[in-house]
């Protein structure tokens, strides 16, 4: 038998997250776990596996696919699904566009990031999902700092930041009316650093994009973007090869890269410890306005 697990901050956060995930399964009929292939959803899924081991994870993963992914992320997603035998549901923003549910943005900063909300809400309605877990963290963004573990959404999928349920002790209230649903964020209390430390501690596999590699990039508004068929470039912008990695992985059109030589999780932790820029500092979707995240969340975003 192994030694007693010491309760340091990571183990305490782990225990809390597992408790939350189990509460979801106990309180909801038809939950899913949102999975983007980024480090936060990978860690969240790892926690879910721990929560139910040796049984299988009793809910599917759901990927809202913008169609503008990095191929490395999709490959990783498919590998993980195959490796662990979890069920994966994919819903495509492209389908929402084809059905006329959303209109593709135009111009140089066009992104499908915001459009995801409609695809997500449609999927929730179609599949009668009553709870969607997400890997959002309160340290990411100021509107997210206000988020509850159990976040109630009305029949339009909307978040009402002024009318959130008080959340006391570890007593999570998931009661709702038909047609409403919940978003639950098991790793609310984790910081970017916690996520990386946990990846190191548990030896969790992550997509290669997080590690330093050579890539064709160009600079716009101080952010390095990967050259991709999904981004329309200006004549003045020039592509060059640089040694980069990604701190967050989202839609290729709004996720910035950073110049870095970090090749291992240890390197990444050292880099994160020294950085003076927030994780989402390179996310164009947050820079659209002072309240960009809040506005998207009110509409029903993750």
């Amino acid at each position, binding site marked *: 038998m192994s030694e007693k697990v010491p309760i*340091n901050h990571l*183990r305490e956060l782990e225990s809390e997250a*597992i408790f939350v995930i189990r509460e979801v399964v106990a309180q909801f009929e038809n939950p899913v776990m949102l999975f983007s292939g980024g480090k936060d959803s990978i860690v969240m899924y790892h926690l879910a596996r721990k929560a139910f081991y040796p049984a299988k994870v009793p809910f599917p993963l759901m990927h809202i696919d913008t169609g503008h992914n990095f191929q490395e992320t999709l490959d990783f997603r498919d590998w993980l699904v195959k490796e662990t035998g979890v069920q994966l549901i994919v819903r495509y923003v492209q389908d929402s566009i084809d059905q006329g549910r959303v209109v593709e943005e135009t111009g140089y900063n066009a992104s499908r990031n915001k459009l995801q909300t409609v695809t997500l809400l449609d999927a929730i309605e179609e599949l009668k999902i009553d709870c969607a877990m997400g890997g959002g963290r*309160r340290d990411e963004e100021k509107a997210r700092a206000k988020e509850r573990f159990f976040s109630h959404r009305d029949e339009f999928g909307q978040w009402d930041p002024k009318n959130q*349920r008080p959340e*006391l002790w570890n*007593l999570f209230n998931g009661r709702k009316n038909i047609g409403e649903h919940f978003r639950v964020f098991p790793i609310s209390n984790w910081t970017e650093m916690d996520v990386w430390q946990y990846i190191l501690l548990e030896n969790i596999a992550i997509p290669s994009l997080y590690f330093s590699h050579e890539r064709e990039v160009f600079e716009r508004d101080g952010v390095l973007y990967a050259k991709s068929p999904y981004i329309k470039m200006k004549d003045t912008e020039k592509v060059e090869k640089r040694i980069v990695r990604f701190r967050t992985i989202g839609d290729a059109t709004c996720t910035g890269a950073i110049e870095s030589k970090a090749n291992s999780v240890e390197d990444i932790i050292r880099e994160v410890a020294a950085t003076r820029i927030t994780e989402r500092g390179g996310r164009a979707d947050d820079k659209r306005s002072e309240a960009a995240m809040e506005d998207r969340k009110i509409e029903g975003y993750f």
Partner: protein
Amino acid sequence: MEEKTIERSYLDMELLRFTTAGSVDDGKSTLIGRLLYDSKAIFQDQLEAIERASIKKGEEYVNLALLTDGLRAEREQGITIDVAYRYFHTPKRKFIIADTPGHVQYTRNMVTGASTANAAVILVDARHGVIEQTIRHAYIASLLRIPHVIVCVNKMDLVEFKQEVFDEIQQKFHEFSSHLDLHDVRFIPISALLGDNVVERSKNMDWYQGPTLLYLLENLYISNDYNQLDARFPVQYVIRPQSTEYHDYRGYAGRMASGTFRVGDRVKVLPSGFTTTIKGIDFWTDHLDSITAPQSGTILLEDDLDVSRGCMIIPEENGIKQGQDVELMICWLGDKPMVPGGKYALKHTTNDLRCMIKEVKYKVNINTLEKDYTDKAIGMNDIACISIRTTKPLFYDSYRVNRVTGSLILIDEATNVTVGAGMII
């Protein structure tokens, strides 16, 4: 001493959760801003963003409150509406701050922030001394049994850093709080604006020999904030893999609420009352010898008993209170007043049941701490002693000895909103 690498030393840190309480203009945002800023938890792009926003609003200085006010309506009105959570760390500890507004819904929000806190930081304006708000904050800290209370006497710069002012506030606080259930109260004279005694020692107050706020937060002894005597394991979920490999596996998943269980312990399962032995404790692929609060894990029992969500595993020789008639202190959170004789849904550990409000015994005047036996109307932000009758027996401890098995929430069955925070007497 063994030299640890950066990435490894982070793995060994403790977590301290604290809440901040103060009234509207006593410098709470400034204090949090100062703690985050001086501990280098504010990033350059965040600072630049609030600089831009401050200029846009026509403010003369960089408004650190913009850093903590995350909602559009908060920034527009310059007030904090709801609890927000902030994170920072020093080489010694990780911190979670429940940043609660000092505004209108003070009690409700402070209770929310206080329910999970190891410590409360209560701000007092040195110019105004102990006011009704201070009494209220101290009372809630006592009611919620926050193990450590730190009273920061702020704006010392505005009273010429005089020791008499600090001493008098300390004495006043002791006078009224002697009726309260506070065990560890510390006082620090600070200036959040100038940074005196927040992270750096003050050069202006030689007479103060105690620790800075950050030093105190880094060194409070929190290991025994969980009840370590009474083992309690509320069953959260039953794990039955239904696979060939684990055909007979039947594990009870949950989080240890208090105390420790070891393999081989004799236990009793409630409500059935059957006794058995702990056969194993699993966590992921590990087989553990023991499980201690607040760990999550899975318990395997020697005998096949009827155990499901809502059951509680306790030691055979260590009883827990049981019953359908329960007396509790309640903090009312709902917009609608409490309905005497009304029925509410109730959540207690992993148990879902219903209850009826039998009697309002008294209401607490949280400004004077007097008990009012005549006014029985309980509205939002009121605190009262009530008795309820539940549809099924509860297995509980007094909140005084166990914050997990002694707490419950009431839910309005029509709106599904959490309307009451209860602490069992």
